[in-house]
């Protein structure tokens, strides 16, 4: 092993790392098989791609080179960190390019075809990072150490492994959904006219931390009903009290077992106006009709076309809004800003977990309603993890 351990290291940061060795082997073998099937000699998860690094190692910060021929990977970590999955990673201090390059050379990849994970946004991971997540200077240094190797994007190799959840992962998706739902219940409990919006924000976060969620920003959109561009907060609102007739839209995220899920349910501090009721009713229909379509072998193109066309018969609009649950930035991503054109042919599979929250709106788009949470694709169809009654919460 040419790389020597850093002599000085900061304190080891302990993070959750409770998946089994069988889960590790499942992930590594799936990635190896996918890599071999498209002709990569090795997969490189480089500096910058921390999310895939965690998926493959359960370490807080790592890089990994995984040969596709079944050989053991070389993992690089810092701060003396190690775990059951990776008992003896190569340790580094703040220098990453040198050991990444050495790892590839050590594995005999000097003239290999190397798949770099996170180089670009993928079909089902790194979906909002269209230019990927890889650190430039480190990768260029690695490439300069292996001038005869070929480096190509392999984001989907790990992405498609992440796309299908194991039973162990599903158990944590379920837990995560419960914690997010508890956060929503706390929000409903605290939201009252006159409440300090910052205290409300802190209370919801604290509730989820108490239930041992890792942190992920909570998003609240708060303004009087009918406000054209309501104020969105992903930090505690300053100088703001909730007022009567305020609409609180929300995205409440929780992480258990590294699985990020989300629930959302609008809350109105007042009586729901009659004009909203047909939109909410339409939403309920499209949510349930979409849910019935989310099953193995349905393509996302078919689902998107169905949902996006659903509202027209009522003289209203409906839009698909969906993304994956998982280690973060999971897809496929369908939102008003992301039409998901490159995943139209991708099929839904058993073991997929999504956040399903379609949007219904009036034709003039002045009234807009979204509600939803995590769903799991099973043999029989789809199981929704958000157990609350559909609709807008009215607090009067």
């Amino acid at each position, binding site marked *: 092993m040419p790389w020597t351990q850093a002599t000085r290291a900061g304190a*080891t940061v302990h993070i959750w790392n409770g998946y089994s060795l069988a889960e590790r082997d499942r992930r590594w073998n799936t990635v190896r098989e996918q890599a071999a099937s498209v002709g990569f000699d090795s997969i490189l998860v480089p500096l910058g791609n921390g999310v895939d690094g965690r998926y493959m190692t359960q370490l807080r910060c790592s890089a990994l080179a995984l040969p596709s021929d079944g050989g053991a990977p070389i993992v690089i970590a810092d701060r003396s960190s190690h775990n059951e999955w990776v008992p003896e990673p190569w340790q580094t201090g703040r220098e990453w390019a040198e050991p990444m390059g050495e790892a590839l050379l050590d594995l005999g990849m000097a003239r290999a075809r190397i798949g770099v994970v996170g180089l670009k946004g993928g079909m089902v991971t790194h979906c909002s990072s269209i230019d990927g997540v890889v650190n430039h200077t480190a990768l260029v240094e690695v490439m300069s150490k292996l001038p005869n190797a070929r480096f190509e994007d392999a984001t989907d190799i790990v992405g498609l492994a992440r796309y299908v959840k194991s039973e162990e992962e599903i158990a944590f998706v379920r837990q995560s959904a419960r914690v997010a739902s508890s956060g929503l219940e706390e929000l409903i409990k605290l939201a009252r006219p006159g409440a300090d919006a910052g205290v409300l924000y802190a209370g919801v976060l604290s509730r989820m931390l108490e239930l041992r969620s890792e942190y992920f920003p909570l998003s609240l959109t708060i303004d009087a009903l009918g406000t054209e561009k309501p104020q969105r907060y992903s930090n505690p609102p300053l100088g703001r009290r909730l007022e009567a007739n305020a609409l609180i839209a929300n995205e409440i995220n929780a992480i258990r077992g590294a699985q990020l899920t989300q629930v959302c349910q609008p809350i109105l501090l007042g009586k729901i106006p009659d004009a909203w009721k047909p939109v909410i009713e339409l939403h309920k229909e499209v949510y349930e009709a979409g849910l019935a379509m989310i099953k193995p072998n349905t393509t996302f193109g078919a689902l998107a076309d169905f949902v996006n066309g659903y509202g027209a018969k009522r003289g209203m609009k409906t839009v698909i809004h969906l993304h994956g649950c998982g280690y973060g930035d999971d897809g496929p991503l369908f939102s008003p800003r992301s039409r998901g054109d490159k995943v139209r042919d991708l099929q839904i599979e058993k073991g997929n977990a999504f956040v399903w929250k379609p949007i219904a709106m009036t034709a003039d788009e002045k009234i807009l309603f979204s509600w939803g949470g995590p769903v799991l694709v099973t043999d029989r169809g789809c199981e929704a993890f958000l157990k609350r009654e559909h609709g807008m919460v009215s607090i009067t």
Partner: protein
Amino acid sequence: MDASTNIKWEGYSVAERDWRWRRVRENAVKAGFDCIFVPLCVDGRNLHLSLEQARGTRSDCRFLTQLDNAAVILPTDGREPIIISDQENGNDWVPEFRPVEESWGKSMAQALIDAGMERARIGVSGLRRGFYTHGRAFHGVVNHNSYVEVLRRLPNATFENATEAIGYARYVKSEEQINCLRRGAAIAAAGIDKMVELAHPGMDEGVLYARVMQRMVELGSEYYPLAFYSGLHGDGRLPRFEDPTEGRTLQPMYRIANEVDAVFGGLIAQEQQPIFLGPIPDAWQPAIELQHDLYYAGLEHLTPGRSFAEFMDMINSFGEKRGLKSQLLMHGRGYGDDGPLFTPQNRGERNRDVAIEKGCVFIVKPIAHSADGTFNTSWGGCVVCTDKGGEPLVKRTPGMVSIT
């Protein structure tokens, strides 16, 4: 302290924006750049070497635009910058920006071309670590794919590392920034008060963690993870946690160490307070007293114009006259990954020639060791450098809190 609902702060002024842009332009002109380019940087969830570094990865764009994610092209000749962002809305500083079209690489390259930089000397911030910023990110923070696309589309331009051009502008704080750091330090101190209130044997550490975070967030801090260490003395280095722990309960005679950070106005303040769940052993007192005196000696010596070589030598040799060992532990405060960085690991050797300046803000938390090396302690907080020396942003007293 004010509850968040009573906070009247409405963001940095446009004068502050102009002050920052002017300082960056001046630094860039001195270095002979035609423009400063802040490219797309990797997000902090993915490039996460440490809490500080993760927060620092997109810090230059936040410093220049107050947008969470943006690329900036700031010509040195005084023209307005071109800003590209994927955010939903602009702000008072940047009401309008260019959206990302197809890819960041293409959009950034087009903006450089539109700014007349096809044959220019372009200073790129964040390509490598700097003295003042990105010190923990040896390989910088720049996104590969988009940056390579920019290089490809501007083959006749010269691109060079310019991390210091923005770094040095960030090094000295304006009054507006100092006021935000002062509020942040006060919030962090309130977080410590909450920890001291709740820390006792039998307390669930995860609940303690949640309550401290709740206290700081309800006072208006952005969420910045508390770093929490706990365990028996003598069992080796205390484990560090940055999320609420599971299945851990405080025990009698536990040591608690922490880094309690609060973020206000985008700037990270930090306060630190060691706690012991029992009577403090006599054998620890000399080191605790040394740390107390070391901290105040540090404040006296934190004067403008002094080099860090002189300052660190003073701190590192301070314990010798008492037969003890002392070490400098400090770094800059600001938008994240602020320097210069002095730790027992890096010893700060590369920063020896950096000068202390009026308006700098640091977290100062030197370490004192017992004579036999079996105990060490660090206490500290945010300090602004004034003509008269270091002035703590919030008044607290060095020492170890004993909870019996």
